């Protein structure tokens, strides 16, 4: 029986004007475009300078900031109000205000103050921007002090040299971080969404009821719905791996077979999840809304964008029930760290658990009669 049902599913799939293209085009565009968009790098912070001192010191400070590469001077104002207006219009992110007599105060009174006002609507950007700026000012301060204290024993000022090193991703390329996770997002969409929508659509059309009066067992029926999407899952994954290699130059440090193994488990589990939703949804609108809610929640809680470790404790707890979290960890670890199955045992257990749980639930909750 399975054979006839599969024949039907594949025919319907390929006859659909939309779906076959989706399975190829969606992963392609997602992996081509989204890594470009997903860029948290804080570069080119727009700085508004209010230099009321106009002294050699203040000028050389501004030059030093400009030379750092992090900042772009987008606005030069003569007072704070003007500068604030440029922040309000998003022309600038940070205001550096150098008060009058800055140089004079520094030389005569050994102290001078500066004002940094950062737009902190985006807390990270505001925080990092001020941290960079403070760092540059501190360096500048050290230089100035050296100049001014040349007569003193300047060896006594201790200097700590900090050498940062970034493991696994020395150049801190953002796409290295995003690409493996985006693969998961695409897989979740194709393998979770499509089978659920397919079933709900048959519910609405009444064809599912027709199936329910046949002797087809629910196990066979469910299998016939899922099998095609497992196949498409591999197509999607292969397209993704291709794009990662040829466009982003990313090849997993670990074994490709490990990736296929874990993706199989994930796809099994996630398509089961889609089925559970379709069993409870009465129509497409409901199914879609439920899936959207769950998929978005799963994605946001999976660490795709923001590290799970940064979340509040309760959110971290919830994130444990997101299958996406585990598979994203797996892909990142295999791609970047070269981890093998032995490093990924917790994830293996979790994904096997999800697959059993969701598919078990799907079979149990499927009712041939009400």
């Amino acid at each position, binding site marked *: 029986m399975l054979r006839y049902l599969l024949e039907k599913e594949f025919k319907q799939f390929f006859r659909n004007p939309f779906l076959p293209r989706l399975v190829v085009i969606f992963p392609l565009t997602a992996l081509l475009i989204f890594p470009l968009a997903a860029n*948290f790098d804080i570069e080119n912070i727009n700085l508004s300078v209010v230099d009321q001192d106009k002294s050699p010191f203040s000028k050389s400070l501004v030059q030093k900031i400009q030379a750092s590469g992090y900042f772009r001077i987008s606005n030069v104002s003569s007072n704070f109000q003007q500068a604030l207006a440029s922040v309000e219009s998003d022309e600038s992110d940070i205001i550096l205000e150098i008060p009058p007599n800055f140089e004079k105060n520094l030389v005569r009174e050994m102290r001078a103050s500066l004002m940094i006002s950062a737009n902190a*609507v985006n807390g990270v950007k505001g925080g990092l921007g001020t941290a960079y700026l403070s760092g540059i000012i501190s360096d500048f301060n050290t230089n100035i002090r050296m100049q001014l204290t040349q007569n003193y024993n300047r*060896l006594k000022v201790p200097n*700590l040299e900090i050498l940062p090193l970034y493991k696994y991703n020395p150049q801190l390329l953002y796409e290295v971080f995003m690409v493996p996770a985006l693969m998961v997002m695409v897989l979740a969409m194709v393998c979770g969404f499509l089978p659920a929508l397919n079933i709900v659509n048959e519910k609405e059309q009444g064809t599912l009821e027709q199936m329910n009066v046949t002797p087809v067992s629910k196990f066979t029926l469910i299998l016939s719905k899922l099998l095609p999407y497992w196949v498409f899952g591999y197509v999607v994954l292969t397209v993704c791996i291709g794009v990662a290699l040829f466009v982003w130059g990313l090849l997993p440090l670990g074994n490709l077979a490990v990736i296929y193994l874990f993706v199989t488990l994930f796809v099994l589990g996630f398509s089961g999840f889609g089925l559970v939703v379709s069993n409870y949804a009465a*129509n497409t609108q409901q199914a879609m809304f439920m899936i959207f809610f769950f998929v978005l929640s799963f994605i946001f809680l999976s660490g795709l964008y923001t590290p799970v470790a940064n979340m509040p404790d309760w959110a971290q707890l919830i994130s444990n029930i997101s299958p996406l979290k585990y598979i994203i960890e797996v892909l990142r670890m295999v791609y970047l760290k070269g981890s093998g199955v032995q490093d990924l045992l917790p994830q293996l257990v979790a994904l096997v658990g999800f697959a059993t749980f969701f598919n078990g639930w799907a079979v149990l909750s499927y009712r041939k009669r009400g």
Partner: protein
Amino acid sequence: MIFTQKEFYHIIRDRWTMMMLVALPVLMIILFGFGITTEIKNSQFAILDLSRDVATQGIVNRLEASDYFTLEGYVTNTSQIESVFREGKIGLLVIFGQDFYEQLVRTGEAQIQLIADGTDPNTASTLVSYATSIIRGYQQELTASDQQGVPYQILPEVKLLYNPTMEGAYNTVPGVIGMILILICAMMTSVSITKEKEMGTMEVILVSPMPPLLIILSKVIPYFTISIINLTTVLLLSVFALNVPIVGSLWLLVFISLVYIIVSLALGLLISSVVEKQLVALLISAMGLILPIVMLSGLMFPVENMPIALQVVAQFIPAKWYIVAVKNVMIKGLGFSSILKEFMVLSGMGLIILTISLKKFKIRLE
């Protein structure tokens, strides 16, 4: 209006759908408002300290005392570095060489190595810069204790505008509102209209003597109402649960939201006027609306960091403009003049989309 009533009945009778339309946005704002955060708090770090002297202890204490870091433990030799990172438990490893303090005193220079897990470049660079500034602070302290008072000191006063405590929710809430409204308005409308097309009931309504404009209105008004309910609950939640204040005028915020809702509904209409099948309507709204909003609108990633081509694309996403407007009014507390551009762009988009979809609807009639 009988048809509007009918549409309301559809939604209200369907208790499940009703519940979802009202409850899910609530869950979303809570989940995302609290959950999505790029702030670093209590990040686990480890130490490889070959000196174990006053200076290294001083630095470790300072790192530990900050909100950013929590000490996971000590690594005893270099061979463990690899495995510590592989397990993925720590984000940062601080390495002090031998005779750290002695060197510092004798030569005035000492080296500290920071190794960060670069898998997540954002977290890595943030951790490194936080650690750096903490170490610099310690250095200042050393200087200060060495000599009485540091000469020639520049003291920066830092002021964080709009969001002094750097709450992540200030940045995510406007984006999440933009996403929820599109989800309800554009997606739900397009799916419900295409459903009627699929079922054939649309034709029955279309052949009735009702003018097409009224038919469209009757389909749209219930979703308009629901999105206003959603807007209210979401705003209430962000103020009272997430503590994101509405600094500017509430009415201005509501006004610009209404404009955005209308644009979203128009988008829903446009999709349903072009598409015949529910499934296609759904996929188009999912892949064509929701994903771009998540990725390109500035909800997650700052638009100004994107390559020029994508920045251009982002200009066509209504949510991008709406998010800027909400940030300006709600968080910065600015007036109408600050969102004039956003208002113009959104109304322009709304007008164009509405005109096209109305035309398409009429063609179907003839």
